[in-house]
């Protein structure tokens, strides 16, 4: 029984990996079907995750955490709005909640990134005194000032340097990192297809 328990997921991985590969390369309909199944499983997993979120914060609410209470109430309210929209009790309730609550909140969080990134930059100067930190700060300053048009020759120089940095160093570096990421993804995927890497049987 134990062997079946360990062998069955591996067998399924072999079968569906091969089917997906064949579908992607040769039989698009097969790939579409499998993709549909995957999407369905992803939604189920999302529901399980939401239930976990609900249970965790409900427990915290019982222990007296008010913010968890706000989360629980918001979660229930959004689900309720979705149901009422579906049964046409309300019209555009979810969209309104998204437009007037979620979107501004997400935008606010995103706007804080600027501050945090600036803090991190200053912290680099504060805590690390090495050539790499100096290069880091120097390139950062050059790029920032190069994007703006400073008066005089300084603006020209900084602009030219920032363009070269962007086109040469930044682009090539990013491309190299992306190629490495792609190759790593290929290696991991091959390991999963061969069954040597089993995230499902830990």
């Amino acid at each position: 029984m134990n062997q079946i328990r360990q062998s069955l997921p591996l067998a399924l991985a072999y079968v569906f990996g091969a089917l997906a590969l064949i579908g992607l390369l040769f039989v698009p309909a097969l790939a579409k079907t499998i993709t549909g199944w995957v999407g369905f499983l992803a939604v189920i997993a999302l529901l399980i995750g939401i239930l976990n979120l609900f249970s965790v914060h409900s427990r915290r609410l019982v222990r007296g955490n008010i913010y968890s209470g706000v989360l629980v109430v918001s979660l229930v309210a959004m689900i309720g709005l979705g149901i009422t929209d579906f049964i046409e009790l309300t019209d555009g309730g979810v969209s309104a909640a998204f437009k007037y609550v979620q979107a501004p909140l997400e935008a606010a969080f995103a706007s804080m990134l600027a501050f945090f990134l600036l803090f991190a930059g200053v912290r680099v100067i504060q805590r690390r005194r090495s050539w790499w930190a100096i290069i880091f700060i120097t390139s950062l300053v050059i790029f920032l000032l190069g994007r703006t048009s400073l008066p005089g020759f300084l603006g020209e120089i900084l602009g030219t340097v920032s363009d070269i940095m962007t086109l040469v160093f930044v682009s090539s570096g990013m491309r190299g990192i992306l190629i490495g990421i792609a190759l790593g993804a290929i290696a991991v995927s091959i390991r999963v297809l061969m069954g040597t890497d089993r995230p499902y049987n830990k």
Partner: protein
Amino acid sequence: MIFSTPNLVALLLIVFSIASLYFLTRRYVDRSGVGLRNIKAYEKLQKQAVKAMASGRSIHFSPGRGSLSKATNPTSLAGLSGLQRITEDASSSDKPPLVSAGDGTLFMTARDVIRGGYEHSGRAKAYESQKSQFIAADNSPMAFGAGVSDILNQGEHGSSIIMGHIGSELALMAEAAERKHQDQIIGSDNLAALAVAVSATEDVLMGEELYAAAAYLQEEPAHIASLQLQDILRILVALGILIAAIVSLFPRT
């Protein structure tokens, strides 16, 4: 269309990769002649469990928000390798790691990895399901970042390990960890996240270093062989780029 050139090239590449991985795995069965360069982040990661036991502050681990049903699957699997190692090391302590996932499929797999780590250590009864939680969906990165930063702001953790697909919302988490003086180990396949990570900590796993997690932490022959495979493919890609660049120098007739 079905047997188009790109498809055939892709198939050829896949077959070549499978065969190479197989032969390389057999070659490294006895793990001899393998030399991996030191990656400081992995060395520090292996010490986190001991540090957690000594300091009494547990570890927070996040495998990111990459769904296993999307192209971020390999990145998430690499992060789960790190989670497996952390769980096995920390399962014998009274401070189990807390895991925060940003996707439903990743959340369920992470929970399974944690439970497997406890079973591997022979402490299945000590497994607590509450130690892994779902934060937000993968299409709400800021919500995920805010949720994780809230966990880190509580100050119960001594270190924050983030290995997986994550974006610029990493800045929120890094700032929260920095305020609570927590050790940070960050690995991502996202360029924006890497830019933030470099300024937050020195222990950064860039791109392919993240995918080497299994080789450094579990040291299985297949994992080391996959590193070799990456090197082979990288050489091939470099050669291809070089050849293409040389060819492009010649004017087309």
